């Protein structure tokens, strides 16, 4: 009885272990990714401003990660 309980616990443990994804890039290997030159948009105002310029003059919009307002009609 005790043996089968142990086996069950080990089995469940193995199953749970298989479910969790192990990070293949360890936290201590992410120093390059943490360099500011790797950030997508370091300057929010500048990124938003350029998006507004394009959105006001193009037919497309969206999926750029910035939100703004105004029509840019003129």
């Amino acid at each position, binding site marked *: 009885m005790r043996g089968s309980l142990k086996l069950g616990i080990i089995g469940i443990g193995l199953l749970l272990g298989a479910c969790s994804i192990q990070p293949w890039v360890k936290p201590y290997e*992410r120093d390059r990714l943490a360099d500011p*030159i790797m950030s*997508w948009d370091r*300057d929010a*105002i*500048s990124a938003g*401003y350029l998006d507004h310029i394009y959105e006001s003059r193009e037919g497309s919009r969206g999926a750029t990660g910035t939100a703004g*307002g105004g029509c840019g009609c003129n």
Partner: protein
Amino acid sequence: MTILPRHLSRLAALAALSLICVAGAAVLPDDRADLFWSQYRGGGMDITGESVLVRKKFSEQFALEANYFVDKVSGASIDVLSQASVIKDERKQKTVSADYIHDKTQYNLSYTNSTERDYISNTTHFSLSQDMFGDLTTVTLGFTDSRNKVGENNGTAFKPVIDWLGHATSRSYEGGVSQILTKNLIAGATVEVITDQGLLSNPYRSIRYLDPTVPLGYSLGSQVYPNTHTSTAVEGRAKYYLPYRAAASLSYRYFSDTWGVRANTIELGYTQPVSNMFIFEGRLRHYNQNQATFYSDLFPFVNSQNFEARDQNLAASTNNTIDGKVTWAFAPEGFLIFKRATVSFDVSRIQFKYSDFRNIKYYNDTQQGGLYQPGTEPLYFFNATVLQVFGSFFF
């Protein structure tokens, strides 16, 4: 226990912070204040922008951000010039934003008010980001609601008479994922669906149609747009840390909407730091789109179809951007209350070309020679230069 020298322990703490940052949204970014100036010149427009941004953490979990932006517009684009007097306007945009972190989830709520003489916009945005799979993956979901009041200035630039024409609402649903692929490569994908309803046309733009009863050979009329619009944009991007300390990026966006517009945007970027004082960046962007189904540069007669547009934004077009930017860390060790400070200079040159939008301002005007018949005028194009100068102070 080994005691690290003070600067080493500080570096270690910073590195630990950065490592958590790159994993996703577990740590709020540094407090900062930005002063921003910009100038846009092109297509008859001269726009000067000024902005200030302040971001402050009140705890490790909560931060507030405020941004004020003023655009001063003078001049007018080609289609406004072809039918109206020169304009002068100002757009003021105010944003307040709050970030809250709980465990591996970051919540953001922001509100933006943008006011022009003839256009008022109120936008509320909510998003949440969740780190998962050993912090290699960050998933973001966002929702934006925008309510706009649309008007038209029927007075002059200096004596405006605003007629409020109607309202437009917009809702945006966004989903994104950012994924660490290797210790040098990060990639991301975003999908955004936007639905609009209400008065969606630009009141300053008109259709033109053949009219043999007038000397020009054409007349101008009001645009008629559908009162609904839904668009989908999908973007994929990747950034790679090169073997020496530099980064290269690539992004592609595909756009389609219920008005028949399909567009592609591709962007290449390169970042090169020099010592700890300078970061040089270059960017190339190419954009192309086809025309909307109800767009025409010249309609055969008035009311020839249910919906009619001659807005250059809906014309088939391409544009190309070349951009250069340098960031100078003029106070890398900090001063007064600031831990460090930088100043950035950014210059962009954008070339816009239209395949079916013609320049009617200077052509086919009988008073100036009457050289072109309607529909044979040269295709419109213009170049724009965008300058940005801004200082960032981190504290």
